[in-house]
């Protein structure tokens, strides 16, 4: 499997400082920078370009905590999987339904202040889960990635992804409005 941690020569883990990540990208990019291939053959130049694209992609994936968490779970052999969700509780899905209902109202409404407050609330819900993920991944690492403790991590991440998608699509839709 494609491992962005390996590509950027970083230790696998959820805790990842932005500066460290940025540094790792720069270091890994040195050998592949287009300037070094100005006089190289077309084939070599293309290879370097592809490598740079791969490194940038790895950087973008690791920078986003939710994608980082998803990658860590996949690498450990517990991918979230696509399609129907068999992880979330009906209670959470009900709660999600309410968030979506409110998001739909804010999308139609014309009150930028209320919209802003609502987006902040959603962001808080996401942040809370990211914090819990941080603790969870630390505990999981300490437990030598014992499969027994992976379920709550998957549930937390799944919830955070729902909330993030809702926030993203609301922001996308409302930006459009005000342009």
């Amino acid at each position, binding site marked *: 499997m494609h491992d962005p941690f390996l590509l950027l020569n970083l230790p696998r883990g959820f805790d990842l400082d932005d500066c460290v990540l940025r540094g790792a990208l720069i270091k890994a990019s040195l050998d592949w920078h287009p300037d070094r291939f100005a006089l190289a053959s077309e084939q070599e130049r293309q290879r370097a370009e592809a490598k740079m694209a791969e490194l940038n992609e790895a950087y973008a994936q690791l920078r986003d905590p939710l994608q980082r968490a998803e990658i860590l779970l996949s690498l450990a052999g517990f991918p979230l999987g696509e399609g129907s969700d068999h992880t979330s509780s009906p209670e959470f*899905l009900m709660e999600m339904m309410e968030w979506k209902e409110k998001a739909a109202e804010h999308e139609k409404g014309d009150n930028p202040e209320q919209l802003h407050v609502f987006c902040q609330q959603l962001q808080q819900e996401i942040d809370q889960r990211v914090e819990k993920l941080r603790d969870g991944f630390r505990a999981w690492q300490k437990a030598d990635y014992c499969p027994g403790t992976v379920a709550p991590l998957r549930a937390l991440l799944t919830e955070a992804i729902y909330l993030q998608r809702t926030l993203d699509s609301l922001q996308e839709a409302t930006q459009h409005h005000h342009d």
Partner: protein
Amino acid sequence: MVYSEKVIDHYENPRNVGSLDKDADNVGTGIVGAPECGDVMKLQIQVEDGVIKDAKFKTFGCGSAIASSSLATEWLKGRTIEEATEIRNVDIVEELALPPVKIHCSVLAEDAIKQALADYQKKQEEKS
């Protein structure tokens, strides 16, 4: 994404949107989701004398997810519980001419039906 006419029809005129009393004995509720697309779907059935008298849904998601659940409620009404278990996602795919990338929407609808039926049956067992 090009949607079929049937998807557009269900999307623009969704049938049976709404909610039923989830605490009622004769109502079964199914709630499912797909995190990657952020879709959430709720589907409810109201059963009288073993026949589904009413079905309602509420879906937040793409056109195909809305159309799949809208069609599911149409198909559920008038069926017995037995008959309702026979609805398969492939039937929804065929009816709505869903493209391969949207097949998961029909799976979501089938899961919602199964959950609603299971919820109803659980309530009946608890009652007796």
